[in-house]
């Protein structure tokens, strides 16, 4: 792949999805896009780029989806789900004892393993959540990925990575070589298509936001922008959960890490966070007043 082609793809992906590929990710592009090019009857990446430049919007969508779809598995990294059960939910059960409802957003829901892992964790909590209204909203950029998440059908390989056998027995139904998650758990989750670069204020506010392993693909400016907008969708006593390689530290003061709970963040007091831009806006006026 020559460098104008690579630059074209980088720019396209940046604009469409926010994906920020460094200059050395040719292998990633080739491994993901060559199969796609072949499927579209094209012989190589340069031909694919030509076709994209000619403005094939269906192909552009496929390219963006192929590059942004990430491998995932049930209870990925395990620890965040322990924190979810033992820290986040314990806190919420106390704090929301009056209204008995919890809203959770999986902001990179992918093929459904993460939202379903949360749903299973909540089910396992049993009586502690009896009578609670639980809403889990799972969003992803890719429509194709969302369809898979909605169906909740997984291969034998997929259900053996991270999913304890007891959970498989309890929450899945076997159909031939595949396993489908139970209707009761599927009904706990709403799947919606969403690009994190675009406005998401219509989703409302959440008690918990899982946003794992997606921000790593964005550049610093985009990350800060997303954090600031996430802060507006989270309850003042809510929780943000990030991936193992992600942090807010050094990027934004809208969230702060929770000590000894890796990956967990709390929103900072919105008044304190809001004070900064207000001060900045007020400054010129004050200067004028002083004149």
């Amino acid at each position: 792949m020559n460098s104008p082609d690579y630059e074209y793809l980088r720019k396209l992906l940046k604009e469409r999805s926010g994906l920020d590929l460094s200059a050395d990710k040719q292998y990633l592009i080739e491994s993901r896009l060559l199969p796609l090019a072949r499927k579209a009857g094209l012989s190589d990446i340069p031909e694919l780029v030509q076709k994209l430049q000619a403005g094939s919007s269906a192909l552009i969508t496929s390219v963006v989806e192929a590059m942004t779809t990430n491998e995932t598995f049930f209870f990925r990294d395990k620890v965040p789900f322990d924190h979810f059960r033992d820290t986040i939910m314990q806190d919420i059960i106390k704090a929301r004892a009056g209204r008995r409802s919890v809203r959770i957003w999986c902001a990179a829901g992918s093929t459904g393993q993460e939202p379903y892992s949360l749903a299973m964790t909540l089910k396992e909590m049993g009586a502690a959540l009896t009578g609670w209204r639980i809403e889990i909203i799972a969003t992803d950029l890719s429509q194709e990925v969302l369809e898979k998440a909605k169906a909740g059908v997984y291969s034998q390989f997929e259900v053996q990575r991270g999913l304890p056998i007891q959970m498989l027995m309890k929450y899945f139904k076997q159909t031939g070589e595949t396993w489908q998650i139970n209707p009761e758990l599927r009904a706990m989750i709403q799947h919606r298509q969403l690009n994190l670069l675009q406005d998401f204020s219509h989703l409302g506010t959440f008690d918990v936001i899982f946003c794992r392993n997606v921000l790593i693909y964005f550049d610093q400016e985009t990350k800060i922008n997303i954090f600031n907008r996430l802060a507006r969708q989270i309850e003042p006593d809510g929780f943000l959960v990030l991936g193992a390689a992600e942090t807010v530290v050094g990027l934004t003061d809208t969230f702060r890490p929770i000590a000894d709970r890796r990956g967990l963040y709390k929103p900072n007091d919105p008044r304190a966070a809001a004070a900064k831009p207000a001060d900045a806006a007020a400054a010129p006026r004050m200067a004028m007043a002083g004149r």
Partner: protein
Amino acid sequence: MKTCLVVDDSSIVRKVARRIVEALGFQVIEAEDGVEALVHCKKAMPEAILLDWNMPVMDGFQFLGTLRRMPGGDEPKVVFCTTENGIDHITKAMGGGANEYIMKPFDKEIVLAKFQEVGLVAREEETAA
């Protein structure tokens, strides 16, 4: 070093399993069937047993029942590893005292995930993305 007993009548599967389990830091002993596996267990209980279901002489399920009635036989973590991938077999195995269940074909990722699940292998703090 922890020991893992690999019980399978296929020498190819034993070889593949040995390579994977050794890479996870176990010393590996092999057995071709349940009877041979019991001989090893009487000598010294392994920490882990990777167990096929269908084998001549004594199958995996019979072996598991006998093992769990032996003195110290409740100690090893038993992970089935079999082509029997039906829910009926899984339910029977777990009811019979197995700790985890792998449906063949398997790879290193699956064995690692299952060994972590039963506490045979420590989880990394958190795997980087």
